[in-house]
Structures are given as C-alpha cells and as structure tokens.
C-alpha cells in the first residue's frame, strides 16, 4: 500500500486492537473507518482512570468508621434535612 500524500511505502501496526497504517517516509498515519472513534474512546477511558480525576474535593477531615454511609462520596449531596435543624438547639 502507498501513502496517499507522498506515495511512500505504508507499514501496518496493530496497537491495542487498533489497526494503524504509517508511511515510512513522511510518518503520516492512515486510519481505517471507525478507528479514530475507537482511539478517542480509549483516550477517554485512559484519562478517566489516570489523570482527569474528580473535581478538586473540598478540604475533608475524614469520617468516623461508624459514620452515616453517604459520607466520603464526593459529589453526593446528602438531602437537606431542614426539618431536623431544630435538633441542633436542644440540650
């Protein structure tokens, strides 16, 4: 197979299930149909696992081992228990 840009010879690589053709003279890469989407998806998975991570959490001081189950899950907002606020006022 010839490079569509410089007519150099293309070499085929297989990387993590993605089929890549690379030109040996101009280093250009040719992707088969659907392979760009596959790469995009894999990149998304990788960055989710490795770097982008969750948004910076507020400063936390940990929760006790006997704490209510919802504690410690960032992003989960416990329900507003307005009705129970009065409890904070009695001896």
């Amino acid at each position, binding site marked *: 197979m010839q490079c569509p840009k410089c007519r150099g010879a293309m070499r085929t690589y297989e990387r993590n299930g993605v089929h890549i053709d690379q030109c040996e003279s101009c280093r250009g890469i040719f992707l088969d149909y659907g392979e760009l989407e596959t790469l995009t998806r894999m990149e998304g998975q990788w960055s989710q696992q490795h770097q982008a991570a969750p948004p910076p959490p*507020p*400063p*936390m*001081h*940990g*929760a*006790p*081992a*006997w*704490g*209510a*189950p*919802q*504690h410690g899950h960032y992003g989960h*907002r*416990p329900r*507003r*228990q*307005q*009705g*129970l*606020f*009065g*409890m*904070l*006022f*009695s*001896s």
Partner: protein
Amino acid sequence: MSHSDPLLDELRRIAVQYGGAPAEVLPTRPDVIIVRAGPVVVKAHAPGAEREPLVERMRATAHPSLRGIVLEPVTEEVMVVGDRLVTVWPAGTPVDHLNPDAAPWEAAARLLARMHAVPAGALLPLRAAGGPAKVASMVARLDGDSAAELVVRRAFTCLPDLDAELVWEPFSESFSLTHGDWHMGQMVRAPDEWILIDVDDLGVGDPAWDLARPAAWFAAGLLEPEVWNRFLDAYRAEGGCAVPRDGDPWERLNLPAQATTVQLTAGLVVTAKREGRPMGEAEQTMIDACLRIIRLRSACQSVSTQ
C-alpha cells in the same frame, strides 16, 4: 405552667428592677424560665440545681479572661427564689432556628477554641464540666423495653466506662476550660458579636466534648460534610486544642461523639414516648447511628479478645 404563680411574679419583679422596662416571659426549654425586661434577662435555672457549683461558675464567668468568649453576667450574684436559683444576664439575639444556612458555625468554632485556650488555673476553684455525666443520666431515663430503648441501652453498654473519663487532673495538658453543653442554642448575638451563653455545665474537662454534638450530628448524617468541615477548619484555624492540628480528628472525637449520640438518642426516645408519638425521621436517624456504634464496638471487642 401558671403565669401568675409567685415564682414568676418574683422573676418579673427582678427583671423590671434590673431592666427598667416591662417584663415578658420568653419561650425556652421546659425546665428553665427566662424573663426579659428591656436590656436584661432573668434566668430561673432548672429545678434541683445546686447553688455552690453555680456560684463557682458565675465567679469564673465574670473573670476578665472570658470577656468576648462567654456573656458577662449583669451581676455575679446567684439569687434564690423559692426552690430555684436565679441569675441576671444581658439580653441577646439567639441563632435563628428557621434559617440553617445562617447558622454561625465558624463563630461558634472560634469561640470554643478561644475558651479552650483560657488557662483554667486562673479560674479555680472550678469543678468538672457537665458533659460526660449527662450521658448516663439520660440513658437512665429510659424505662421500657421497646426496640429503640434496647438499642440505646446496648449502645451505652458498648462504650468504655465514662466515669473513668471523668478522672481529671486540674493542670493536665489534655484538659482545659470547657463549656460542657454546647449546641446551637448556646450562643447569642450581644449586641453585635456572637458569644457563648449558659454556664450551668462550664468546667474543667476534655475539650473534645464541646465538639461532640456537631461531630455526632455529622456522623449521624444530619450535618452536611461541608458544614462540619467549615466548623472544624475554623476551630483549627483559631488554634483549638481539642483535636490535633493536622491529621485525623476522630481519634479524639470518637468517644465523646459516640457517647453524645447515645445521649441525644435517649433524649429523643424519651421525648417521643412521653408525647405518645411513634419514632420520626430524627429518632430513626439517631437510632441507626447507635446501631453502627454497636456494630463497630462489638467488632472491636471480639477482635481484641481473640
């Protein structure tokens, strides 16, 4: 309660004498009476309160090292009206029960941190703070065998001996001046700044007990993590000594917060029973916390005996 009884008449008379304005009875908890007259309030303490400890606490409260931390009484004097002890204070504005978002968590944390830094030696003689003793007395008020009562009693027996926790040495490093009964109802704005009130349980003790209520509410899931963290951050930023400056605060908070959870749950169960109503959301949330305490403490005990 009748509003024309001799006790109330005398409280009104005292209030008018100090306040120079018409007297009105303010709503408060059932065992206390508060009468306001213009700039002062007169407080009839709960029945059965002993005079000498309150005299000591009033003397400590009037000490200059507590200005800006605890409300200064109008007079140090502890009066006796009938079978009640009576004290006189400047009137203040309490925290709004209906507006959780406006609750002054940071101000509370700073006041407690500053109180914990006051050298207790200057205030002696002063006895132990009221916190730990309240737990057993509240649990003792449970008189039935409902599932809720069994859970609370079981959680109480899982806790280490709190009497041993009461053994303190006046100048021990881990003990300090403490409020002894802090919650959101124990602050007023007077006139512009928040300040601590109610010295009935003030004394020397483990300062972690003053953080025990918010810690218990947080552990029960009643206090949002953000609010708890704001409170704890402000306490640490003010140099509060109840928890380590960095690292895990729960090493110091676990026992006071668990004991307070048991005490608060007992109080809720007693009240629900007295009012003849079933357990509501608040009661169930606290009972769940008691169950988690039982699970954790039982697990720890079975491991340590292996």
